[in-house]
């Protein structure tokens, strides 16, 4: 190694102490302020779910207690009072027909909905990514078998799957586990299709070939080279799975394999609230709003992760700010 060569690098080497990949990732993630805000919002939601008993104790309401006196029976059971019966006792009003406390039901509902939908999403993404990768990389036969298996799962309606499960699964299996499993089983196909199609494009790239030459097995190549590139579509799609899973959870309740009443869940609340959006709008808007905030915060976090995972996008992001500054200075200069 010639001295000259080493020296020639010195100019370029005047950089801050290098950071490892993970640390760089965090740095890039934290650089996005919206992500921090969204993460805090999401954490708050999780906190609300975990602290549901505490919060309802604070309010002094039981999520399952009926208050027939608070609804107008002759008018179909609309909550008495304005804004769905909001009062000091019932912070967010009461449910039509039953008069159950909405705040209590919402925070308890967060437990089921966030827990089930979130875990199910993770499982779905895991299954989807694994099978999608296997289909794309495992050769023609693996692709055929997996793709056709996916077709079977896609074509089987939830109704039939629900019926099947009622028949096989013993009552001893805890409901949340069962629901999570069912949702995971019915909902991975989208992820798997996306992963398969993207991986098919990616696998012809030189850097994947290079990794294969490095001596990695297919699995390792998939994990190391393809996964990071697949993160963008998978995260984007995965975030959308959360509200989709909340609806599946509600649909499962119809089939009798869902959360058992009277336990509340956002999905069920949304479904029940459907017809009430005119006469008792808060009943619909509250769970819908919570779900929306959840999805929005997840979206922003997901978007941030996506950006942080892609060093090129990350540097572009930084630039967006600068270019605006550039534009400003340009404008000033032209005056």
């Amino acid at each position: 190694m010639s001295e000259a060569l080493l020296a020639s690098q010195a100019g370029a080497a005047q950089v801050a102490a290098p950071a490892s990949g993970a640390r760089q990732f965090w740095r890039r993630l934290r650089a996005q302020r919206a992500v921090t805000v969204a993460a805090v919002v999401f954490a708050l939601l999780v906190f609300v779910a975990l602290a549901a008993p505490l919060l309802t104790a604070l309010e002094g309401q039981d999520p399952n207690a009926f208050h027939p006196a608070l609804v107008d029976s002759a008018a179909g059971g609309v909550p008495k009072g304005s804004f769905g019966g909001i009062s000091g006792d019932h912070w967010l009003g009461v449910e039509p027909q039953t008069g159950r406390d909405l705040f209590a039901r919402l925070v308890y509902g967060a437990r089921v909905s966030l827990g089930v939908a979130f875990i199910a999403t993770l499982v779905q993404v895991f299954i989807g990514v694994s099978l999608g990768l296997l289909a794309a990389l495992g050769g023609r036969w693996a692709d055929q078998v997996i793709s056709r298996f996916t077709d079977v799962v896609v074509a089987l309606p939830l109704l039939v799957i629900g019926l099947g499960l009622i028949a096989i699964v013993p009552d001893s299996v805890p409901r949340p586990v069962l629901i999570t499993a069912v949702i995971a089983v019915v909902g991975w196909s989208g992820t798997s299709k996306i992963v398969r199609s993207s991986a098919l494009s990616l696998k012809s790239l030189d850097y994947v070939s290079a990794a294969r030459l490095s001596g990695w097995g297919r699995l390792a190549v998939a994990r190391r080279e393809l996964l990071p590139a697949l993160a963008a579509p998978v995260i984007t799609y995965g975030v959308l799975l959360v509200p989709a899973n909340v609806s599946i959870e509600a649909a499962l309740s119809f089939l009798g394999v869902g959360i058992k009443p009277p336990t509340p869940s956002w999905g069920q609340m949304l479904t029940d609230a459907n017809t009430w959006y005119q006469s008792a709008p808060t009943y619909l808007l509250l769970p819908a709003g919570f779900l929306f905030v959840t999805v929005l915060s997840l979206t922003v976090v997901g978007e941030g992760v996506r950006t942080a995972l892609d060093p090129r996008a990350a540097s572009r992001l930084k630039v967006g700010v600068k270019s605006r500054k550039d534009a400003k200075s340009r404008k000033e200069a032209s005056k």
Partner: protein
Amino acid sequence: MTEATTEALVEVVDLGISFGETRAVDGLSFSLAPGAALGVVGESGSGKSASAYALLGLHRSTGAVVDGTVRVAGTDVQRASDAELRRLRGGVAAMVFQDPLSSLDPYYAIGDQIAEVYRVHRGGSKRAARARAVEVLDRVGIPDAARKARSRPHEFSGGMRQRALIAMALACEPKLLIADEPTTALDVTVQAQILDLLHGLRQETGMGLLLVTHDVGVAAESVDDVLVMRQGRAVERGPVRDVLGAPKAAYTKELLSAVPRLDAAKPAASDAGEPLLEARDLRKVFGRGKSSFTAVDGVSLTVRRGETLGVVGESGSGKTTLGRMLVGLLDTTSGTIRRDGTAVQMVFQDPVASLNPRRSIGESVADPLRASGVRDEQRIRARVGELLERVGLDPDRYDRYPHEFSGGQRQRVGIARALAAEPQLIVCDEPVSALDVTTQAHVTELLAELQRELGLGLVFIAHDLAVVRQVSDRVAVMRRGRIVEEGAVDEVYGSPKDPYTRQLLAAVPTVDPVLAAVRRAARKELREQLREQAGAAGRDEVAAA
């Protein structure tokens, strides 16, 4: 417009470019008169590409900070509005990028991409634009341009892609052509053809040329003035004759002395050991039916331990295809390859595409180490650092991402990665094409060293005949998918039998600008001869069918 012609086409004053804390270009000033040609040579990573980008304002919204002033054809690039910039880009000044594969949209036919760009500036019907695309493709020497215009970039060889980019630039008939290493993937005959073409255009249309190159010979053949760069600064600038003939700066002298000579052969092949790889009658056919194309057509070769097989040949003759088949990345259509468990590696022709943009280069280099089961982080870092250092990169840039590197630097990362695996055989596909001669000499020396130490077998695909001579024991000349001539280096270089080999040798650029002009004329003649020959061959084929 009239104003523009009176003033300099390009006027760069005190240009500085920083990427974060990296100062890539610092205090660079130069100007270029209309119709003139300026060559920028210099060390890999010295800021050549970065400066070229600045001429088109391409650093805008990328995170780079640019200072100083840049005026191109009367436009202040730094302050121009987006619309003004768009008018400038392509229409007035066109750029040929350094990384040809990644610079084309993989989803669209090449002809369409050229046509699209053409229409933005020249308007006209889609059809006319397509016709124009075919025309320029033909001018840059793409055979059967009408058909090839419909191909996607991945169906092109490295050199063909590079020519496609040149064609794109020429399509709009710009006043200024900024060509960043435009001939790195071209064999010498095609390279000469391209350089002649550029020369011709300058004469016909008065196009200005800013040629970034590491190849002093190329500069000598095509420019009036040279600018020598190092570490982001100009070290010397002047008429090509003076700078190359009587260099003042120490760095320029060093550079010139490192230029490999056609007659400088490798120290006699140590000992040709047992065969590492034997290929028999390899064929590769792309596509099916009518659109099928035979890229490699009955190639047999053997690579032995401790030996270097140089492969030279026309752009698009199937060198990359052959190399990929040898390492097993591409299935053969027919023929057999015996590797007997030889650990093989490849240095890819396109360094950008061969590096995962999401992983730091250190991690990419560490890949083979991790794959072989090394878990100790410290050891990995140490070993990768050592490798980076050996290819002339700063080990501290372990955690940097590929897009933060210059073309030549990425190429060296690719070499480091291939070496990390400690393979027995490496197929190097144009491994030094983007390196300045000093770095190039250093890297070839490194390979030779390893070969001596480990008995490494090398397949060295390159278009630079001098380099090939320097590193190879034997050399194979490829044309149209076949090996037209094979033998010991001295034999092939000394007494070439095949006319194509002779033509190749004749086309090697010389560092002497005067000689270059003479040879340009001679080449023209030879080319015409060859074209007649090819026509005859084509007719024979038709007759046989």
